[in-house]
């Protein structure tokens, strides 16, 4: 038996040698084991949502723009992109992604159901911010689904079992839909004049984490605006403006003094993320293959998404004012900020000019969800619809500030008689109070690409038109000049068509980018609202 022991020793040794252990990180977490009652667990759940948000960034842009009048396909575009552009998207189109939105919603539902908002750390309810952030992202996702598909499968409890996967309410009525969301969001909205707070995760990737969330007031503003509750909408947007101290400053593209070159400051709004222009975006990074494809799709090299002729015309047909008499044509946010051109020989050896989108060269690794200018534009849209076209127009031409608003030459004072708190850009304050000073620098939105617009005498209310509608037309143009390719366009056109109760508004706008022979069929197609919506993916 002695021999046995000896052999045994050899075996024990060989067992120990290879058995050095590694760290034991868990990669799957069973649902029933998940508790969101610490900052760390809340962070993991929230990050999962943010990562899922990355999955909808590209389609947000593609469906929002390629169906609109500003973006077009190219000779390199796939059939699927062409189908989207032609409103022939079928249910197998791989860009359709309602599921990705529902994944955001389900993960939000899960966080909302599990998070312990009563957890108190250092005297504050530590996880309340995650709760409101999740509610906001969930509502925004639902809104995108409704706008894209005309219906939502509404549920607010986490769906964790295959048996429960059909437990939802199908809502096709926007009022009913938005009622639920408004009721859900309102309690989590910060008090008036109090800035909204977001979970503070420091810097993630190249981004300040607080901007990876969506302000609740923005989502509420959007919901109210779609509901045509303009005052409520204007209030929400104003609260964002006020609490974030947003101003329309001199970030403009302009000709230099000798009119030989450009000064490009407008692009800084997209490159300098320390400005408070970009309030909310979907952030990406090169890591882990989750990056956005939009910069590549729009690049000169890939060239699959391009500016439409209609978009280029919109920029090119603007008037740039050096003085009240010296002008140039063209808005400098176009050729010098949103797109550029190159020429190439075609098969017939002709030099052909191609235009390509450059905006995403500046928007490194993010898709903008909410930026200051957009909030101002939405605000102007709402205020205009409230019957205050001159307030909306001074926003475009002169800038919203005390001096302009009190100047009877610019602003119709009857529009200000009602003294809404959300139309206060210093008027109810003295000249040296901070609010007055803050807005003092507001310039006319249109001047960001069109020079000294306030000197442009032809940019004014024409006689004998419905001034609300005229201002709205200017805003529609301004949306194009300022926010083209960012993903909002089709929904902007939808919303304004709805408010005008005129589907042909959208139809005519979109048809503008099509060749003449196709225009009529597009107008006909889009005059029927049901063709505004995407098919559900198979």
């Amino acid at each position, binding site marked *: *038996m002695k021999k*046995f022991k000896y*052999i045994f020793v050899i075996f024990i040794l*060989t*067992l120990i040698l*290879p058995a050095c*252990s*590694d*760290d*034991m*990180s*868990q*990669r*799957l*977490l069973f*649902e029933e084991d*998940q508790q969101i009652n610490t900052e760390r667990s809340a962070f*993991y*759940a929230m*990050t*999962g949502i*943010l*990562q*899922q948000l*990355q999955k909808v960034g590209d389609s947000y842009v593609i469906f929002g723009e390629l169906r609109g009048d500003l973006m077009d396909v190219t*000779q*390199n*575009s796939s*059939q699927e992109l062409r189908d989207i552009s032609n409103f022939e998207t079928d249910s197998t189109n791989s860009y359709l992604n*309602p*599921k990705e939105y*529902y*994944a*955001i919603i*389900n*993960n939000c539902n*899960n966080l909302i159901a599990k998070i312990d908002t009563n957890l108190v750390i250092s005297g504050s309810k530590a996880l309340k911010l995650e709760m409101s952030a999740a509610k906001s992202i969930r509502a925004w996702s639902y809104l995108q689904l409704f706008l894209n598909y005309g219906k939502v*499968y509404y*549920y607010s409890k*986490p*769906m*964790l*079992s*295959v*048996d429960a*996967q*059909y437990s*939802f309410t199908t809502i096709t009525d926007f009022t009913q839909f938005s009622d639920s969301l408004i009721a859900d969001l309102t309690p989590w909205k910060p008090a008036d004049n109090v800035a909204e707070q977001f979970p503070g995760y420091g810097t*993630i*990737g190249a981004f300040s984490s607080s901007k990876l969330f969506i302000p609740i007031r923005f989502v509420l503003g959007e919901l109210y605006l779609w509901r045509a509750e303009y005052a409520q909408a204007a209030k929400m947007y104003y609260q964002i403006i006020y609490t974030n101290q947003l101003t329309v400053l001199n970030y403009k593209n302009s000709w230099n003094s000798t009119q030989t070159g450009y000064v490009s400051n407008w692009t800084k709004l997209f490159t300098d993320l320390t400005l408070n222009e970009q309030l909310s975006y979907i*952030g990406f*990074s*090169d*890591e*882990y*293959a*989750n*990056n956005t*494809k939009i910069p590549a799709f729009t690049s000169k090299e890939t060239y699959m998404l391009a500016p439409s002729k209609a978009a280029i015309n919109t920029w090119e047909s603007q008037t740039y004012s050096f003085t009240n008499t010296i002008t140039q044509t063209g808005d400098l946010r176009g050729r010098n900020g949103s797109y550029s051109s190159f020429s190439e020989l075609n098969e017939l050896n002709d030099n052909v000019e191609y235009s390509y989108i450059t905006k995403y060269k500046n928007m490194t690794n993010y898709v903008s969800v909410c930026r200051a200018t957009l909030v101002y534009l939405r605000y102007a849209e709402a205020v205009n619809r409230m019957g205050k076209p001159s307030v909306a127009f001074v926003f475009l031409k002169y800038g919203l500030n005390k001096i302009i608003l009190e100047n009877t030459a610019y602003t119709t004072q009857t529009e200000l008689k009602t003294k809404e708190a959300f139309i206060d850009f210093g008027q109810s304050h003295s000249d040296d109070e901070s609010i007055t000073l803050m807005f003092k620098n507001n310039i006319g939105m249109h001047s960001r690409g069109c020079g000294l617009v306030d000197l442009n005498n032809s940019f004014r209310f024409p006689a004998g038109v419905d001034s609300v509608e005229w201002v709205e037309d200017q805003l529609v143009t301004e949306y194009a000049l300022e926010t083209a390719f960012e993903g909002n366009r089709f929904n902007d056109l939808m919303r304004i068509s709805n408010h005008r109760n005129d589907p042909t508004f959208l139809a005519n706008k979109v048809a503008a980018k099509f060749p003449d022979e196709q225009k009529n069929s597009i107008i006909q197609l889009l005059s029927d609202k049901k063709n505004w919506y995407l098919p559900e*993916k198979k």
Partner: protein
Amino acid sequence: MLQNALNAQSPADTLFVTGMVTDAATQEAIQGARIQAGKMYSAITNETGHYKVRLPYKNSMLEISAIGYLQRFVTTRGSQVKNVSVYKSSFVSPKNNPNAYSSTDALTLEDELQSRYGSDIRVVKRSGEQGIGSNLFIRGYNSLNANAKPLIIVDGVIWDDLTNVSSIQNGYFINPLLDIDVNDIESIEVMKNASSLYGSKAANGALIIKTNRGKSQATKITFDAMTGIIQKPQQIPVMNAAQYRTYVTDVLKESDFSEARINNLLFLQDDPTSLSYNKYHNDTQWGDQVYSNGISNRYAVSVQGGDEVAMYGFSMAYTGVNGVMNETTMDRLNTRFNSDINLSKSVNVATNISFSQIDRELRDDGVDARTAPGFLSLIKSPLFNGYKYTTVTGVLTDKLEGVDDLGVSNPLSIINNGIGQHKQYRFNISAEPVWDISKHIKISSLFGYSINKVKEHYFLPVNGVSAANLENYGMSYNVVKDQTMQQISVFNDTKFKYENTFADVHKLDFLLGFRMLSNRFESDYGEGHNTGGDYITNLLSSLAYKKVNGLNDVWNSKSVYAQASYSYAQRYSLWVVSSVDHSSRFGDNTKDGFRIGNDTWAVFPSVGVEWLVTGESFMKNMTFIDKLKLHSSFGLTGNDDIGNNAQRAYLQSVNYMDKAVGLKIANLNNPTLQWETTQKLDAGIDIAFLNERVNLSATVFSHKTQNLLTLKQNSMASGLGSYWTNEGELRNTGYELALGLKLINLKSFKWNMNISAAHYGNKITALPDGDYTTIICNAEILSSVGNPAGLFYGYKSLGVFASNEDALSAYNGVGLKMQNVNGTYSSFGAGDIHFDDKDGNGIINEKDKQIIGNPNPDFTGAAFNTFSFNNFTLDVVFTYSLGNDIYNFQRSQLESMSNFYNQSTAVVNRWIANGQETSIPKAIYGDPVGNGRFSDRWIEDGSYLKLQNIKLSYVIPIKSSFIDGLTVWTSVNNLVTFTGYLGGDPENSMNQSVLYQGIDYGLVSSGRIFNFGLKLNL
């Protein structure tokens, strides 16, 4: 003894039988043969070969054994005289041969399974890599998406190994059976009937392996040595330099290379005085640079012996292989120590301890145009050289060349500067105390523990390797990958056994047992790119495009099982088996089974009957039939390999941006998820006649797998893709034939032949979301109701358009066209493939796809011949497969003619001129109309007949007190394969999943192996 039997008192003379035992070849009487009748009575033949033995009952069976002869069973059938002739033991059937696995040339036991178990098990060798093993299938495929391989049981312990994990080394398979040295195997049993003894793990049958133990107290020492030469593998022949130059000129015409760039390509310039002439004017046989003959060596020692208290068997073996791909190696150490200790008269303990360590140096294999030296050796232009020439003098140096002007890696760089470490360890320990409570009752409990570990390290250098553009990341210049996996398994099998024989004719066995298996598995994987140079080969946090992931899995199963068998007079027998199983993988609200507490238990009953017809009196006069036995079994078995967590709702970690980790819902709870259920029915006949010269057995079987594990779409609102459910159904029916022939039985020359054939037909009968295809290696694999699994689904080709007129006439005078990615259309013209426009709309698209091949064979089997002449024995083994289609993925890459890769010599006949009739289309850069798309051009008949092994051994007649025996032998593997298949080897398999069968991923093919060995017994 004989005297005893003769003198035994008997109640009636009819209960005696007398006769004579003779040698079947010489008819000479055999003295000393033992005749056993029942348990109680036996006799020994006298010098004239005669015997008389008492029978326990009428028609009882006699068991005749004599040294050097095969045991033989004969039935008396009521007669009182029974003369029996017996055969020399060289007539043993290959699967019953007790020496089958000693002195084998097989590195892994699958290599022996195919030849010995021809129709019992289908063995598909994965590749020619030494020891990589084979995929095993018993009676067709009983699953689509779950595991389809048989259960492996080694010395009573279930091996549930590194399930569904893959090596980071492309084309390599982590083979758990390599942990067993084949020479340590005593026996293998292939369990394929309907028995539900292994319940939810038995749907795919079982392989029950027993290792050698000490048998006798006399110490037996065996030395084994073997050395082998492994020939370079067969490759698809590729073009030489002259052919390639013409080819590449054709391709360049349509490429995006400008005329100026083409004119600057140095390999097209033929001025021998030019400084770079040598560099660009080679005729390199890359295959010879990458592959060379390999060597394998094996040395083993084993000791068996013991005393009354303890018996032991110890073995230690080293196997070393220098692979056919240069720089690849394998070193394996196997040790095993089995012992049986009698602790008391009624208690003994059997223990098994084994350790194996496998170290390999590997390189990527298969179709990988960037990293696999084997594939690179096919596609790399012969004009280049692997080594640099000096610039001015043009002298060849030993410095490696970089990536060539056409962007193709230098395979020699990967071989010399790459790293592909693979280390595999396995430690097993098991102990089984057995308590004989009484003569009839036994209790035993087998406890097993194993730790199984794999460590892999991979490095692909930057020098000489083309950069890769990783989608959404960026350029990868070099890459480091590391993987560690560890599995710890704990097993217990506790049994209560009762056996008794009543009145000599009623034999009753009863077994009640409890089995549990619990597993912990962890894997960690890390990958990083761009280390900055080839001197940094380790995974560091500073690397680019990092990927990390891993698994921590725990799963366990329990089973309560019972088996009762009854046999009457060795003529009729009946068994009933039932097992009741629980697994952590089952949902808790399943359709089948029952619940105790929170656990779902599945029930698997089965029953079997056997009738030895030749035991009956009425067979008395039908003496030409030596044996006729009918058997049948019916039962339910299951497959619990349905994913460890598929039924549970879980969140999965996701990486977000540079360093954040998040959790996302990844799976919904499906409480109804359960095992797959395979209902099995089989019936068979064993028949022997011509004095057992001819043995035939035939079995038919019919399997129906219900609750097939299939994917089903989740609702849109859930936000998730699909979930696993049990909604499909699959059927397998087939038959197995085995014929054993004692063809020549002369005094000194004998020929024993065993041929077998098996057929299965496989049909999917239900799928939850309808038919679908799965894309694997550019191929579409169809899963559709009414069809077999794994069908190839693609375009059908009707030849090559010889002229533009031909092309136009293919559809209404305008020709066929196809839509490009950007939405425009391209036309098929002269020199393009004429694809079948199934729907007749003039456009070749999705709708024209059809079934173009079936990877399921019509027949598989083997022919095992043993010739013996005095001390010489010659084994000649053929294996075959008939009627299976193979998708030759590698060839599709070598005949698509769309880039600068070197191509097979077949493309020399490509279409060049208008009117040319050929089957090979034109060469055109980028293949704009998709002539190389997945079509029947790449589907080939994979039938083959292979002379798998031929082995000659000679027992040297030594009379020595030290040496018990000395055998020398030589063998050749894969000597010749008769096949029309164009790839390296029709026997190949990239993956063990059902849907991957029949796809030739271009893994290294098996070359001939010449082995020489000797075995010395002391």
